[in-house]
């Protein structure tokens, strides 16, 4: 009795602990509830593993698609850099005028290099490559024009910038036709845009389902602990105190699901690597698929934890409030 009511000689008194103790106790309480929630997951392994697996796999799918899109972008960026503009010169262009054009173009900041292919050389090359050697010999005159191959520098190698450069080159008086064969690249970019949108859409739908699954799991946890919540409310627990273990459960689901997704992505990429290598070798190319960067991994874990917390928050806000002592 003496210890329990020490300091209370007469009537009621408010005896409260100090601010430092409150802060210390706050962190201890968080730690205790965080570990307690982890312990709860451990005590129900089957249900916990199922929820973590659903969360992990739901994050794995958009993450893997994201990696594939990123790698396709990486490959296409290489192709993009190699794009060239072909300028077919007018028949009336003399050799001196063609040289003047070359000299002029070399001074343009947008251009990396220029190569002049005289009409005679172009015909010889065509004769060799086409296999029409004898037939071409019967031509009275060379139908091919002089050609200038222009390689834009890195900054002007994108389809949009290259197209602008092409327009500028077409305006040169020596140029008859200018061609930039980038339509296929533009189609690829359009497809990549669709793929990106699709990844985002799949991601959003899966993330919503993750939030709902976690919300429902937490709801069942809340209902199974209804009596405990009632008693806690009666002895003075705040809503925040009651919410916390459930929020930590969502946090652990998110973190463990995110780690599972990371592991799954590594396995998938490792599994796909040999087939991608085989495909690349057909083109005499070496290509190593790039996985998740450190930042992307952190983002994925943060997203996963965030989804876990949002699912828990929605559930506790709705269901803990409904439980009131009557």
């Amino acid at each position, binding site marked *: *009795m003496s*210890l*329990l*009511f020490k300091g*209370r*000689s*007469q*009537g*009621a*008194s*408010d*005896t409260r*602990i100090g601010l430092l*103790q*409150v802060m*210390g*106790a*706050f962190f*201890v*309480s968080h730690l*205790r509830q965080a570990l307690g929630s982890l312990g709860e997951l451990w005590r129900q392994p089957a249900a916990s593993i199922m929820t973590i697996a659903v969360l992990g796999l739901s994050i794995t799918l958009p993450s893997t698609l994201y990696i594939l899109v990123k790698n396709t972008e990486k490959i296409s960026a290489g192709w993009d850099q190699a794009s060239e503009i072909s300028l077919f010169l007018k028949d009336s262009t003399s050799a001196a005028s063609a040289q003047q054009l070359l000299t002029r173009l070399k001074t343009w900041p947008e251009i990396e290099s220029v190569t002049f292919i005289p009409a005679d050389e172009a015909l010889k090359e065509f004769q060799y490559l086409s296999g029409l050697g004898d037939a071409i010999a019967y031509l009275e005159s060379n139908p091919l024009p002089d050609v200038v191959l222009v390689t834009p520098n890195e900054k002007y190698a994108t389809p949009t910038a290259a197209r602008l450069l092409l327009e500028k080159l077409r305006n040169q008086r020596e140029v008859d036709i200018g061609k930039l064969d980038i339509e296929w690249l533009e189609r690829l970019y359009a497809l990549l845009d669709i793929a990106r949108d699709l990844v985002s859409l799949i991601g959003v739908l899966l993330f919503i389902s993750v939030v709902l699954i976690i919300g429902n799991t937490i709801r069942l946890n809340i209902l199974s602990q209804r*009596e*405990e919540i*009632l*008693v*806690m*409310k*009666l*002895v*003075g*627990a*705040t*809503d925040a*105190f009651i919410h916390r273990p459930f929020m930590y459960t969502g946090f652990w689901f998110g973190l463990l699901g995110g780690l599972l997704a990371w592991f799954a992505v590594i396995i998938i990429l490792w599994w796909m690597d040999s087939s991608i290598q085989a495909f690349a070798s057909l083109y005499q190319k070496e290509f190593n698929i790039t996985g998740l960067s450190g930042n992307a991994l952190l983002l994925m874990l943060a997203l996963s934890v965030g989804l876990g917390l949002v699912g828990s928050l929605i559930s506790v806000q709705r269901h803990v409030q409904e439980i*009131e*002592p*009557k």
Partner: protein
Amino acid sequence: MIKFEQVSKTYPGGQRALSKVSFHIEPGEMAFLTGHSGAGKSTLLKLISIMERPSVGRVLINGHDLNQIKRRQIAFIRRDIGMIFQSPHLLTSKTVFDNVALPLIIEGYGRRETEKRVQAALEMVGLRDKARSLPMMLSGGEAQRVGIARAVVNKPPLLLADEPTGNLDPKLSMEIIRLFEDFNQAGVSVFVATHDLGLIARMKYRTLTLRNGQMITDGLSEDMMEGEG
């Protein structure tokens, strides 16, 4: 400590549980509340423990007007009220120690202080050796005493008991009331609702009587019993 000013409570559907009830329990006072089933005892206790709000009138607990308080303040006000029920509402998955420690954990007490206080509370109710037991291993009287230990472990200035002896035999009932007297001696206000007139008759405390939601008597138990006799 507890002040009711012309308090009425009507439940949805029109059932009137309390009608213009006024009384005042001073700090450090011990009092009983009695009346037949349906007289309004439980409603009155629910108003004090903020499980219900009054339809008309004012209820003041420790100076807090319960009509004015916000939802988030309820938990903090309840910490100053030790509540004891006919059924002790123990958490079956937790040990006796953990059950009693619950209010201290909620209030953020440290481990050492919690341990000391729980041991002291259990000693006070004579259950120190049962600290590691689960509630299912306890008798009815022991479970009720665990509920009492939990109610007093955080030194609440007010102890509220709703039929605390309802499930106990007369000897155990008397022991529980003696415990309440001990708490009251230590300065705690004690307000006990019971329909056990025999128990009240053995005490010399202020007794409030409800009938059909109205306060019909407010006086010392022996005077009341003489009046009834």
